[in-house]
């Protein structure tokens, strides 16, 4: 009795006894040699995922999707870039209209590059980079290190550049070696190649890009990337939040071109730690100060009315005293004469009357419309002898009761420098990654891998060559090898 024929593992068709392949679908039989056939659902999934990500087509599509995603984010103003004091919830509905503003926010388009879909896309690209590289690098390395030397003439004739010449394999080997080729021989065949390293180039780029991607992701980890902003008025020292040092602004300078456009911003700055100046440098745009991992940048500047020199004038029109009033932070009282003092009742740096409560208040954080309300008080008795209100920057006539009134003589400008402090631990990794990318690019694009197969047949040499780049250069190289120009070999 005949043994029952086996059934194909793939399509179920009958397979003759001992047959290795299915006659119907061509699938190879026998589970022992093909461990991939006996798979749990999980390994099958991993296998499929691997094949998916190992595909160049998938990688290309992912690259294009990433480009499209980046476009989307560049068309909507990003949360970290818009110049408005309002929070996104208030800003976007006003900027793009209530419907679109809220839709953009819901889709994450207002913070596109940290949104869930963009990060997912980047992660998919990273997975694709890793799997594509692993999938190809090892087989590639094997074929480059152990190339197949012995080839049929039919294979050689099919190459991009082919030629024929009289001569011996030994002669060809030595001239190839002279031209910098690595040569391997097998019976009547010879294999030579040059610029092999070029083939590893793309994988070096991929490794560099992975370093770049990981460095960029590392920035999101706590304490890896710290940023502080400080505003320091001229001549003052401001503590940098959550650090153990402060910054002194000795002097902020702004220089202008004759046209009025700014030509230079600079802060003569010092780092103060434990009451001691530990570093001092002029910080300019493009010239940050470096201190213990912190880079301190000139970010912006601001001027505001600083100190008003306020004259106290008596009823005869004679100035009695001049008081320096700090418009950011006035003193509680000023001595006018030996017997009279000025007591500040209330002060607003940006006076406005709140329409809801009908009470005076500040309209902003800036010193824009400073208003001082004060009493003149006898120092000895504490008796109020007069009242005065002063609109420091206004042109209004003085408002007062009693013998004294206040007049502004001049207002000194106070300059602030805005310094931005960065401490980013990912920078060295990022730069190293970029260096690796660039190295890989040079190797990939400026080295050429040329492969040459030569076969000796009835006293003549048959040559076939393949270029992974620069086919024209290879043609010339083969021309020189064969001596075509001096009329020896011929090139197809």
């Amino acid at each position, binding site marked *: 009795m005949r043994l029952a024929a086996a059934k194909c593992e793939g399509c179920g068709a009958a397979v003759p006894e001992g047959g290795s392949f299915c006659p119907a679908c061509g699938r190879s039989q026998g589970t022992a040699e093909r461990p991939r056939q006996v798979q749990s659902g999980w390994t099958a999934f991993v296998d499929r995922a691997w094949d998916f990500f190992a595909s160049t087509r998938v990688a290309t599509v992912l690259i294009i999707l990433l480009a499209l995603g980046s476009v989307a984010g560049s068309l909507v103003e990003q949360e*970290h870039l818009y110049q408005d004091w309002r929070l996104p919830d208030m800003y976007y509905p006003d900027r793009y209209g209530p419907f679109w503003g809220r839709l953009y926010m819901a889709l994450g388009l207002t913070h596109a590059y940290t949104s869930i879909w963009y990060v997912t896309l980047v992660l998919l690209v990273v997975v694709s980079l890793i799997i594509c590289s692993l999938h190809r690098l090892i087989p590639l390395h094997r074929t480059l290190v152990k190339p197949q030397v012995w080839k049929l003439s039919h294979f050689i004739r099919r190459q991009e550049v082919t030629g024929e010449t009289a001569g011996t394999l030994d002669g060809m080997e030595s001239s190839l070696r002279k031209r910098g080729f690595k040569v391997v021989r097998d019976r009547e065949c010879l294999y030579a190649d040059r610029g092999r390293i070029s083939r590893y180039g793309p994988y070096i780029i991929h490794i560099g890009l992975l370093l770049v991607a990981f460095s960029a992701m590392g920035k999101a980890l706590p304490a890896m990337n710290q940023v502080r902003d400080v505003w320091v008025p001229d001549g003052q020292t401001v503590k940098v939040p959550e650090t153990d040092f402060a910054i002194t602004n000795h002097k902020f300078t702004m220089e202008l*071109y004759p046209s009025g456009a700014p030509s230079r911003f600079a802060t003569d700055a010092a780092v103060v730690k434990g009451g001691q100046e530990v570093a001092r440098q002029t910080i300019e745009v493009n010239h940050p100060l470096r201190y213990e991992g912190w880079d301190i940048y000139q970010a912006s500047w601001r001027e505001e009315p600083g100190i008003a020199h306020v004259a106290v004038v008596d009823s005869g029109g004679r100035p009695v005293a001049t008081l320096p009033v700090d418009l950011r932070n006035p003193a509680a009282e000023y001595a006018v004469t030996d017997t009279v003092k000025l007591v500040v009742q209330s002060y607003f740096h940006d006076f406005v009357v709140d329409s809801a409560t009908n009470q005076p208040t500040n309209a902003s954080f800036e010193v824009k419309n400073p208003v001082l309300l004060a009493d003149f008080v006898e120092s000895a008795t504490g008796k109020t002898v007069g009242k005065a209100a002063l609109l420091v920057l206004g042109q209004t006539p003085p408002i007062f009761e009693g013998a004294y009134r206040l007049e502004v003589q001049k207002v000194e400008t106070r300059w602030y420098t805005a310094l931005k402090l960065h401490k980013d631990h990912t920078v060295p990794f990022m730069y190293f990654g970029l260096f690796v990318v660039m190295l890989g*690019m040079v190797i990939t694009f400026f080295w050429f891998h040329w492969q040459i197969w030569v076969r000796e047949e009835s006293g003549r040499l048959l040559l076939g060559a393949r270029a992974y780049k620069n086919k024209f250069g290879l043609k010339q190289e083969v021309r020189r090898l064969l001596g075509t120009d001096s009329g020896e070999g011929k090139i197809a």
Partner: protein
Amino acid sequence: MTTQNPMLVTASAWLLFLAFVGYVAATLFYASGFIGGRISQGAKFAKVGNWATNAHAAGVLFHAAAIIARWQGAGHWPTSNMYEFIGFMAFTSMLAFQVINRIFRMHLLGALVSPTGVFLMAYSYVFPPKVAPLVPALKSYWLPIHVSLAALGEGFFAVAFGAALLYLLRVRGLELAARDEVAATASGPLPATPTTLSREERQAPWERVWGQRAMEVLFYGMSVMLGFTLLALILRYSGFQWIFDTATYHLPPIIGPLGEAVGSKGSLLGLPLPLVEAPTWMRGKHMNTMLYSLVLGGLIYGFVRAFLTKGPVGDWLARRVSGDSETLDEISYRAVAIGYPVFTLGGLIFAMLWAKEAWGDYWFWDPKETWALIAWLTYTAYLHLRISRGWGGRRAAWVAVLGFGVILFTLIGVNLLIVGVHSYAGGDL
């Protein structure tokens, strides 16, 4: 701080004019060499191609001298505003063409790339050529390094664009020729794609439907840019203006600035000016200029299509382009293969190093940076398309064409349409 030498700046303008003449001469020589060679079947005009290359090389030398003169005259590296930058980009494109031409010597490519340089130079005159002192942010040794190297990479991309466009036309021409042949010899339904083309050269399914249209859109886009340049040049010297609080228009304001009442500037031919108010997301003035360019571009394209080519412009050209399609593909690839690493270094890596030094962080997702990344991704896609079996050839060539569009948008569109930290580079249009 910066010493200026007006004489050198003037000399630079004259040298630039000589370069311009060189490129125009090269364009004419390349074109006449190609057309003459075609008509006489190679019997005549054989040397004209070499004259063209020499004229072109002379143009490049004059251009280099002009850049050096302006550098010395202005006291800073001349890539600080749009006028200087676009001129510099014209220079790098022409330099890149010289490099590629040394390897491949294809005169037809010169006939396409030289006018690109002419166009870029004409376009640069749209912007005010006045030497402006540098803003503090640009005062860095990175200005010459980052901008020049990025522009050099982009120059190679311009050559790749030219070669890819020729490749697409050539393959289309082969397809049309084969179709004509079939039509002449046999009756019955025509095969959609002739079998003489390689797999990569055959149309992809989308291309059968959209390929010809996409090509026409491309020529329309070129007409728009040409129209825009003509318009802007005429305006600069005509002196019309409509003054609003926020902007001064040189064209009748159909789209007014945000917040301007419709009809506040009287009327033209019975239409109130402005006719509509600009939306919040774009400056009215730019939108107004764009509207005119789109219309003028349409007129130019329509004229060419109706009277010159009497049908689709792409197909008309495709029937007249000759050359080895494989070589064209190779040229395009080689140009990208040189431009891509140069652009990566100059346009991205050096940009990151400078950003770190000037602004404190190496990446901000500023629109200009983002678009440089998009351009880089597009060319990355191109390189990967070429190694995906069956996706090289035409698909890759389309991406190379698209890639240059992205580059142009990065350089010009971002400045005009989107405002970011690079906004000091914007021009007034």
